């Protein structure tokens, strides 16, 4: 088990390093940050000074190594725009994002999983078909389209809710609905197919043949098995708590991490972009580790394999 997690952990670190590298390369290749920030009319000596100040005059591989060294020391750089520590800028925005993504996550789980189970248990019924049509709509329609649609109906037409901003809880309803509905759709479809597969397994028939009442066949025999694949998708959703709202935050001008990222990318604010990417990679990787751990808890077949190590 220990070895199992040591390997996972090493892999997680490697993933983060790759993400940082990727971000570094893409951002440096796509334009000169000094020109972007100072503007094309800035005098050459100002640009030169800016470059010196940020270490942009060093060869690219030195910049790369320096960057890694800094990250190792917990130094994530300062925003090139206002000179504040990038990490601080990002942390300031996290509560706003979580205020959207955590309720949205609850919506996904509380709506998606029961809907998927219900649809599977009543396969072919009118409700099953309704759930599936809604689910397909939910994840084929891009979130910005859904967001605009909701704004059109509830803000413009009905005038019940504000279309953007962050002044009261009412401002959060449409963004949460947008995020939650799409995720619930994915989760419903996933849960349904996992349940259907489990319900076809011979051990479900064995349980019925033993005289276990159908309701308990579902709760005691089917659900613990269906939980195993569902955890994967839940882990992915937990991983996107920090940065899963880029589009929605932009549409609803919600001042979260996602919006910060969009602005920072547009401005070539390298430190901020890299800081966010690092944060995203870390949440993703952490949630993957949690998923692996949950797998071990849920599936004894994996557990004994790990124990043999």
């Amino acid at each position: 088990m220990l070895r199992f997690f040591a390997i996972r952990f090493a892999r997680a670190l490697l993933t983060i390093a790759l993400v940082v590298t990727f971000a570094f390369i893409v951002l440096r290749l796509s334009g000169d940050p000094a020109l972007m920030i100072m503007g094309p009319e800035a005098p050459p000596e100002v640009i030169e000074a800016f470059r010196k100040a940020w270490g942009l005059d060093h060869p690219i591989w030195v910049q790369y190594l320096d960057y890694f060294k800094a990250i190792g020391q917990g130094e994530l750089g300062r925003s090139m725009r206002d000179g504040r520590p990038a990490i601080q800028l990002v942390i300031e925005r996290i509560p706003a994002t979580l205020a959207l993504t955590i309720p949205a996550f609850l919506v996904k789980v509380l709506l998606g999983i029961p809907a998927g189970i219900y649809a599977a248990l009543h396969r072919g019924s009118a409700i099953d078909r309704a759930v599936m049509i809604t689910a397909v709509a939910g994840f084929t329609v891009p979130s910005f389209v859904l967001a605009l649609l909701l704004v059109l109906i509830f803000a413009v037409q009905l005038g019940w809710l504000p279309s953007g901003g962050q002044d009261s809880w009412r401002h959060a309803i449409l963004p949460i609905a947008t995020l939650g509905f799409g995720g619930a759709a994915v989760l419903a479809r996933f849960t349904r197919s996992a349940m259907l597969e489990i319900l076809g397994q011979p051990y479900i028939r064995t349980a019925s043949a033993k005289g276990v009442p159908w309701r308990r066949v579902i709760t005691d025999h089917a659900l613990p098995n269906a939980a195993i694949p569902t955890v994967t998708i839940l882990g992915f959703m937990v991983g996107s708590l920090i940065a899963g709202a880029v589009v929605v935050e932009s549409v609803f001008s919600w001042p979260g991490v996602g919006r910060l990222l969009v602005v920072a990318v547009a401005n070539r604010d390298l430190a901020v972009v890299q800081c966010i990417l690092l944060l995203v990679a870390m949440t993703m990787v952490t949630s993957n580790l949690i998923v692996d751990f949950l797998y071990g808890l849920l599936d004894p077949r994996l557990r004994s394999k790990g124990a043999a190590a």
Partner: protein
Amino acid sequence: MAPLVRISGLKVAFDGTPVLHGIDLDIGKGEAVGLVGESGSGKSVTWLAALGLLPAKAKVAGSVQLDGRELLGAPGAVLDQVRGRRIAMIFQDPASALNPVLTIRRQLCESLALHRALHGEAARIEALRLLDLVGIPDAARRLSAYPHEFSGGQVQRIMIAMALAGQPDLLIADEPTTALDATIQAQILDLLSAVRREFNMAMVLISHDLGVVAENCDRVCVMYAGRIVERAPATRLFDDPWHPYAQGLIGALPPLDGARRRLQAIPGTVPDPRTLPSGCAFAPRCHHAGDDCHAGVPPLAPSEQERAVACLRPQRLPVELAAE
């Protein structure tokens, strides 16, 4: 004596395609009855239908009575008291027949709680006794193990222990040894006949293997395309099969001793249930078929000495091969 289970006119259809065309079968107390037939003959479907274990889309008609009480269409609560308690069932693929995420103890104690109202320590002691009975070594330690930690033969033993937990009057064993190696198959069949003797339990042994059925059953029913085509005491059926299909099955089995002979292959294949021939379903593959065979389905006609055959031209001459 009234039979333990009486199945009459049992019919099953999937999506409008009939797969079982009226089965009549009595199981007496303590009796061992074999059902043989190839895939698609309806031997498993008969018992899944009888116990209400088929998916909801299956249309089931006819009657299945346990001690005179109708099971078809009975409410779920009634069936739950029959399944596992009066009639238990074990299946072919032991590896997937037990729930992979629950311990053996949980799965055994579940049956004990449902049917014997045993809980906690009492259930644990009884579970141990059952595992001991079916020959699981070191049962106390292995009670907390999961199914994947056992070999196929051991899982089938655990399945049998679970079936015995409700002290049933009838055990349906659906191809219990098909997935197992020959020497393990012998162990499981031995165990089944031992527990049957000990508890005076009736058994229905469903198998495609004539040898397995012949050795372990009192009576045998041969099924073909959703019907019973011959019913006879086990020894008599194999010494002297009457139905051409039963003869064909025995003739197709290579002998293990004596002179080698060319196998009597039955020509053609099992008919698709959607395009069943009119008349006797076996007629297109039968050497003895005449025009009348294609005209109507021959009924399972009782004959002398507990035998019945559904054939217009039963071949009642002893076949030389049947003596082997």
